[in-house]
Structures are given as C-alpha cells and as structure tokens.
C-alpha cells in the first residue's frame, strides 16, 4: 500500500469531484424539466404525442449512455449544417455535449418515474379539487405536481445516484472529472488499487450524502 500516493492524490481527486458534481447538478436540473415535459406528454390522450414520448424514453433507456455521448459528441459534429449555426458553439465543447447526453438520458428515466407517480394519484383527490371549484390548471400545479413529486422521491433518489455514476463517462470525451483524473493517476503511477480506494471513497461519500438528503426530503414531505 502506497499511502503517500493516496494522500498526495487526494487534493487532485477532490478538485475533480467538483467537476463531477457540476456535471451532475446541471444535467439533473435540465433533465428534470425534460422528464416533467415528457411525463405530461405520456399522459396526453393523443396517441401520436403519447407514442412520441414513449419512443423517446424507450430509445434512451434501451441504449448505453456511452453510445449517446458518442453520437452527440462525435456524430453531430459531422453534420455540415450544424457547424454553421450557433449550436456549434455548444456542440464543439465536450463539456456541453456530455451535459446534453446526461440530461436527455436522465430525462428519459425521470419521465418514467414521474409518469408512474402521476398515474398513482387517486382520482378522488382530483375530483375533490374539482368539486371545490378549483380550476384545472391550479389542480395540476398545486395538487397533482406536489403529490407526484413526493411519490417519486425514493425512485428519483436512485436515479440521482445512477446519474452520478453515469457522469464518469464524461472522461471518455476528454473531460477530467473524478474518474478521468483517477484514470490519469492510475496510468502514470500504475497503482490502481490505491487510487481506486481514494476515488471510490469520494464517490461513496457523495452517494451517502445524496442518500441522506433524499431521506430527509422524504421525511419532510411525508403525508403524516
């Protein structure tokens, strides 16, 4: 065991963990909006809108995240037309490509989580709102959405942890996130076990924190 290496690599790895957290939080925020949008589309009665939303979640859940990143980072740059638009400013940056891929990916899973949460809301609750004369819009924003969010908290907590692990793929498109830096240190020192313990420890610590935040929120928003 090379303890000196472990202590020396800790600051570098902690610095990289900040990038991991940045990638995670931005993708989660964008992904939440995408997920909410597609969950609402899934509940739409129009069969084409419904199929479109289902197709989106099916494709993004059925293919590896690595393929999605590669299509966005290596693939989209190939389209000449895109290179001439303002989108190119975003798409030439590996950072934004990774975030687009992560957001679309977590959006697909989030849409499924929220959809099932919406569907488990008892019709009686909505009917109660209607009989009180509350408008449809207010029922949706003030009754359905808060209940759905509470309902989906445990599943969403799992999704956050899965997404945190997913951000490690950013290292495949040259980003130096926690896994990227860990790989760099391993390949220069050839001490995989030591680096794995430190980097893995940081990941576990972040998992632990996220787990507890979700637990706290679950308690805070519980029905009793």
């Amino acid at each position, binding site marked *: 065991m090379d303890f000196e290496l472990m202590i020396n690599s800790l600051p570098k790895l902690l610095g990289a963990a900040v990038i991991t957290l940045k990638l995670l939080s931005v993708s989660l925020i964008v992904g939440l909006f995408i997920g909410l949008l597609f969950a609402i589309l899934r509940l739409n009665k129009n069969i084409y809108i419904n199929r479109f939303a289902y197709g989106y979640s*099916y*494709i993004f859940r*059925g*293919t*590896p*995240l*690595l*393929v*999605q990143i*590669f*299509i966005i980072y*290596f*693939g*989209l740059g*190939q*389209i000449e037309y895109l290179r001439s638009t303002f989108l190119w400013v975003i798409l030439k940056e590996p950072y934004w490509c990774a975030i687009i891929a992560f957001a679309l990916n977590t959006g697909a899973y989030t849409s499924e989580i929220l959809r099932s949460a919406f569907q488990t809301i008892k019709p009686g609750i909505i009917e109660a709102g209607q009989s009180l004369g509350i408008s449809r819009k207010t029922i949706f924003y003030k009754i359905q959405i808060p209940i759905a969010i509470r309902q989906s908290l445990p599943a969403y907590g799992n999704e956050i*942890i899965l997404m*945190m*692990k*997913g*951000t*490690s*793929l950013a*290292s*495949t498109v040259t980003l130096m996130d926690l*896994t990227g830096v*860990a*790989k760099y240190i*391993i*390949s220069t020192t*050839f001490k*995989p*076990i030591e680096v*794995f313990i430190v*980097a*893995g420890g940081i*990941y*576990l610590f972040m*998992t*632990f924190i996220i787990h507890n935040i979700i637990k706290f929120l679950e308690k805070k928003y519980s029905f009793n």
Partner: protein
Amino acid sequence: MELLAFGDTGWGDELFRATLMTIAVSITAMLIGFSFAAIFTPLKLSKYKSLNLVANIYTTVIRGVPELLVIYLFFFGGSGAIMFVASMFGYNEYIEINAFVTGSFAIGIISGAYSTEVFRGAIQSIDKGQFEAAKVLGLSKFKQFYKIILPQMLRLAIPNLSNVWQITLKDTSLISVTGLVEIMRQSYIAAGSTRDPLFFYSFAAVLYLLLTFLSMKLINKLEVKYSRGY
C-alpha cells in the same frame, strides 16, 4: 448502406461478429454475477452480523462506485494481481490476461452486486410458512432449498433479474475502453476509418435496442413459464 456490406468492402461482418461478442460478454458476466450472488446472498441472510457486513460492503461499494472506475481497476490491476498470486507459487514470468476475461469479470462483479440484492429480496418475500413446512417434512437442507425455496425464489426474482440483465448488457459497452472488440469498439474503429461517426454510432444504438428488445421477449416467456400455477 454499402458501409454495412459483408466482406472486405463494408463493416457488416465485423459488426455482426462484434454483436456476438457483446452477447458473449453479457452472458459470461451475468453467469459470473450469479456465482457471486450465490456466495453473497447467503451471507446477507446469515444470522451472523460479521457475515452480513462483508456482503453489505460488497453490494454498497459496487453499487456506489461508477462502473468505469471498476473496469479501470481490473484493466490496470488485473494482471498485476494475478502475477502477485503466481509469484507466491514461484512463477515470475509476465502474465497477460486477455480483455475478454478482464471485462467479463469486471462487469460480472458489478452485475453480481445487483443480482445479490434481487435474490435477497426474493428469498425474503417468500412466506415463512414455506421454510417451516419444508423443515417439518424432514427434507434435507439441500432439498429444502432446491425443491421448495429455489423454484419460488426464481418466480419472484425473474422480473428484477431482467432489469439486471439490461443493466449488464448496457454496461458491456464500457469494456470498449479496454480494447475488446464488441459493438462499441467496432463502431469506434469503423467510425475512425470511414469518418462517419454519426452513422456507425447510430447503428450501434440500433443494435443495442435490438438486443434489449429481443431479450425482453425471451425473458417474458421465462416469466410465464415460472409463474405456472399462479
């Protein structure tokens, strides 16, 4: 379309072989995962706290650390570990393990952590009376498990195992970083030499979708088979 032609002109046969490789790695990893689950599920359910702890460390660490990091650990540390063990037996030559073995082991250990949780959940949700009845009938420990618990456990576990299979199948794409020529690696090679990454990565996505779709069909059949009588 000529990019997908079989033979020397296209990448059809290469991609076909790569797809077979992905299937082979996924199945091997899944089986390695099952053997890990066979060790760690009893530890999880054991009445000894220290054995519980060992199993909990395994599942928590593997499920909390990115798959890619685990793969790097095996990729860079695998042959070192084997050589260390070999040197204890007096063998000091350089040993290289091939990418298939390293990859299947790395993915297998990950898949095993998920399988362990699935089996634990399935056994715990079997009615207590079943265990007692098996005991009262005077069956041997082996028969209790093999004839009474296992069939019921499988029925409960199959829906969740199909999730584990999907995760495992998608995780195999990460082994491409070690150079094993599966779908992702082959697409990377093809994209590099034809300068058409959009086409080849999209085609890779289609291949993965096809694999997940077909395996779901197959698993649904298994599910029907094991739910007979319910």
